[in-house]
């Protein structure tokens, strides 16, 4: 089976600074990988490059073996959920935040029901009454899980996660691990959390924009 994501000798420069240098790796469906390294080593830039937010200086990025172009980027974005350390919910209430993507033309016909919203929230250890809460009144950990719930409601299969467990307690973290135990979901994450790293089958180590090491172990 071809890889879902493939970086081939990718170099990226931003503001005259090299942020990725000859990075090559591949990730297959269902694999859970973590990018590990010091601050500023280029971990988040790998995720941003895949999403078309950094122009490539050289090399190629492939998604399902199709090169990253201005046309294929729409497909990549429609299959991918990106969840940052401080996710932007982009709406006043949690309910509106969850339904936000369903206002966009591409998802308009799939608007979920309230019971589907509650079901996803419960999977992530979030109470149903959070739906009516103001987005700016909820904690960082809740925001991360709401952003994750949004990805699940959209049926995304590739998750790009940037320190997604940083604000979670043990119970919420467990719920997130359970969600990602689904073999259909592929994860490329930026992580420092040892517990998260244990759940990842592949660890890519980055240093100054270079991929210095790749470790594979039992869990995928």
């Amino acid at each position, binding site marked *: 089976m071809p890889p879902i994501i493939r970086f081939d000798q990718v170099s990226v420069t931003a503001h005259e600074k090299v942020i990725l240098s000859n990075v090559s790796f591949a990730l297959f469906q269902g694999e859970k990988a973590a990018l590990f390294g010091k601050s500023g080593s280029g971990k988040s830039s790998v995720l941003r490059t895949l999403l078309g*937010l950094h*122009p490539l200086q050289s090399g190629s990025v492939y998604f399902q073996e199709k090169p990253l172009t201005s046309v294929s*980027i729409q497909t990549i*974005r429609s299959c991918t959920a*990106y969840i940052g350390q401080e996710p932007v919910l982009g709406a006043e209430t949690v309910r509106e935040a969850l339904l936000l*993507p369903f206002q*966009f033309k591409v998802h308009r016909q799939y608007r979920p029901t309230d019971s589907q919203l509650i079901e996803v929230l419960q999977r992530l250890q979030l109470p149903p009454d959070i739906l009516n809460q103001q987005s700016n009144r909820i904690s960082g950990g809740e925001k991360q899980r709401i952003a994750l719930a*949004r990805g699940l409601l959209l049926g995304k299969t590739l998750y790009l996660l940037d320190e997604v467990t940083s604000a979670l307690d043990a119970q919420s973290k467990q719920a997130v691990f359970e969600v990602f135990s689904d073999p259909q979901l592929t994860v490329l994450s930026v992580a420092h959390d040892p517990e998260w790293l244990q759940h990842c089958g592949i660890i890519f180590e980055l240093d100054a924009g270079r991929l210095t090491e790749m470790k594979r172990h039992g869990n995928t």
Partner: protein
Amino acid sequence: METLDIALPQMAMLYGLCLLPWILLWLIGLRLSRDIGISILRMSIQLILVGIYLKTLFMLNNPWLNGLWILVMLIVADLSILKRAGLKARYFALATFTAIASSILFSTAYLVILVIQPTHFYDARYIVPLAGMILGNCLQGNVIALERFYSALRKNENEYATFLMLGATRWEAVRPFFRDAIKAAINPTIASMATMGLVSLPGMMTGQILGGSEPWLAVKYQIAIMICIFTSTTIACIINLKFSLAIAFNAFDVLKDEVINKP
């Protein structure tokens, strides 16, 4: 009814009035003499030149010359909008010019040809001051629209990127910022219409009354110009922002750094 002339000694007396704010500013420690002096000098020279030019323009009343004057005003407004909005003219000059030219020409033509109906539609006495007034207000609106839109987009880069990641097209992702910028651009005109005559007497109406017009006629012209300012500002801002979207982003919907002037 003739307007009383202001003789040269009286004009000199008028400049003397500036001494009062100048002294007050100096007393509170604001050393603005140079700026105030330059501004008053520039205003005087510019208006004298405009006076000479308008006198010639009215005397010749040539459609091509009138058109050329409006073209010059549009080019100056175009560059001024982009400079004040912090955007690079080499990328946006054509888009902004198209937006303001189309809206100004449309609203001025509508006002002059359909509403005022002078013998010659190109009559300098009508089209030059009316187009100038509409353009002046349109300029303010466009500066606000562009500046607000691009600064909000840079400030809320994560929010914009999140919308894209959630499946939004470029237009869907910028729409909240677009709406806010248009609202900010037309709000001053809406507020000005709502308080017109109550808070202040509008400049054009005052000018006409001083020029000897009947107050009722001055009121009608003021209403006409306000409606045209509102219409052209709204149209120009929407077209301008829409056109700029095709220029300011790369093929991956990311805002290009090089199109914005460094602060």
